[in-house]
């Protein structure tokens, strides 16, 4: 069969949309539907018969999609908002992020015997990917049960903040693991990270400047995408981290533009669903059942370690910030759902020669665990909010 990227992408997207419509009726998370749609076209199912191979062209598409997500997340917050977040949200976020990273890294490393370089690489990558949370799942539970209160606000704050931390840590990790040698590793890493931040800031500043002059709504999306693609191209050319560039660009554009950010962000935010449809169907299409079956123990360890790390880490963060006992005890359970961003980040691993062997395993692990977390996460969030007494009376019985 033809290997036309357009045809394959179209097939994946249409299947994903059809599956998501069915999932909506069956009340199944839509991202699970996207992943199943991709799975249908994987090498274990129809992909083998039709000789479909998405790995040839999926790299660039993933890079573009991830750059859009990083730009949106970078521009989601202002310095004023960060200052207003409060100690509890900041401490709990740092706690659950560090808790998940440490627990997953340690547990996976020990599973691999604690000695091999391969084992450590997989452990540290899975650890960093475990950091982010899916805000959509948390918001859905909060909305369904009309939850109000301090724990609710803390959960929403954490869900919004930890994706940014997850992307930053992943970028630093990738730079560290793959960094070019320019007179020493530390110098090289500093140049790649510092250069990305400077490039992003300059790009964001000019984007905001341009944004002041554009009045027609129809130009907002091309303006932002044009600027974003240009900055990504320069990042590639100058060997600086493209993800950090996109995040710094979003953050600076929002700070320079001084407004709620509609003009520079609302139009791009509409692309978020498209981005996740692409992430999950592509990941599903690259799913290999054989690899997963051989790594069931790894999957179980990852899921358990991530939950324990998040619950313990967030709890410690809560206690250090002086939060109430209820928040410290239950906040970690509320941030179990795993973000689609983790899938996007895992997809990018396949592009690096350093992750040639481990990339497929990590992607399969993250895809399978994201679906597990999407299924159990909402129950954990509901349990936490219920225990904290923040569910609206009458809704708690649903």
């Amino acid at each position, binding site marked *: 069969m033809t290997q036309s990227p357009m045809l394959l992408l179209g097939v994946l997207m249409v299947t994903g949309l059809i599956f998501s419509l069915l999932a909506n009726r069956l009340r199944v998370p839509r991202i699970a539907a996207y992943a199943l749609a991709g799975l249908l076209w994987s090498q274990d199912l129809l992909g083998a018969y039709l000789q479909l191979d998405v790995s040839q062209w999926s790299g660039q598409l993933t890079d573009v999609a991830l750059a859009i997500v990083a730009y*949106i997340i970078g521009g989601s917050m202002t310095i004023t*908002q960060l200052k*207003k977040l409060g100690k509890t949200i900041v401490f709990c976020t740092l706690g659950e992020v560090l808790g998940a990273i440490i627990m997953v890294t340690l547990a996976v490393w020990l599973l691999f015997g604690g000695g091999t370089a391969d084992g450590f690489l997989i452990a540290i990558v899975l650890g960093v990917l475990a950091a982010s949370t899916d805000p959509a799942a948390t918001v859905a539970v909060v909305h369904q049960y009309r939850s109000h209160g301090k724990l609710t606000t803390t959960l929403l704050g954490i869900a919004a903040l930890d994706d940014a931390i997850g992307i930053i840590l992943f970028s630093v990790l990738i730079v560290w693991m793959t960094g070019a040698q320019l007179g020493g590793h530390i110098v090289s890493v500093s140049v790649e990270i510092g250069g990305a931040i400077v490039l992003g800031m300059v790009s964001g500043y000019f984007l905001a400047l341009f944004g002041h002059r554009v009045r027609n709504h129809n130009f907002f999306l091309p303006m932002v995408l044009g600027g974003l693609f240009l900055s990504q191209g320069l990042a590639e050319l100058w060997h600086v981290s493209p993800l950090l560039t996109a995040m710094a660009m979003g953050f600076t554009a929002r700070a320079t533009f001084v407004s*709620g950010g509609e003009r520079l962000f609302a139009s791009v935010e509409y692309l978020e669903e498209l981005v996740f449809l692409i992430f999950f169907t592509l990941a599903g299409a690259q799913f290999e059942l054989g690899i997963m079956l051989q790594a069931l123990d790894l999957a179980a360890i990852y899921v358990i370690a991530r939950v324990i790390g998040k619950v313990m880490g967030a709890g410690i963060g809560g206690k250090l910030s002086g939060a109430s006992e209820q928040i410290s005890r239950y906040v970690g359970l509320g941030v179990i759902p795993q973000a689609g961003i983790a899938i996007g980040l895992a997809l990018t691993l396949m592009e690096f020669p350093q992750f040639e062997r481990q990339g497929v395993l990590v992607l399969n692990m993250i895809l399978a665990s994201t679906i597990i977390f999407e299924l159990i996460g909402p129950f954990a969030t509901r349990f936490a909010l219920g225990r904290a007494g923040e569910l609206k009376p009458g809704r708690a019985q649903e």
Partner: protein
Amino acid sequence: MTEQIINSTVADWLLQHPAMPILVTDDVSVSAVAITMLDNAARDAYVCDGDAILGHLSFVKVMNHVFAHERPIHTHRQLFSRVTETDINELMDPHFQYCRPDEKLADVLHRQLESGTDDIIVLNRMNRVEGVIRLTEVLKASLQ
């Protein structure tokens, strides 16, 4: 009638249809702005500090904020805004549409429709408020 209206200037229109925009200060709550807009059947409000106009708030933006807790919103930007209880200063758009009294009404209408500004503020060369042009009023007049 429509041709006569669109060929007139903003100043001509204000002479026949004098109206002032909704002006609020940046220390009021978003809910208070919503109430003022509803009371005056206005779709846009302008944040001012004395004579200076600082920014613009659309009805949709205000409603989005007021109902943020009741909607399953989940973009990161909306979440941060909700968690940190964004105030008027952060919510308003400082880069707003305005028009001058000597502009053709046709040009202003085009700008209003293109930018989604129902009530566009009229500022003179000193950037002082002269009035407002409401799309609803223009439509009413053109249908008479």
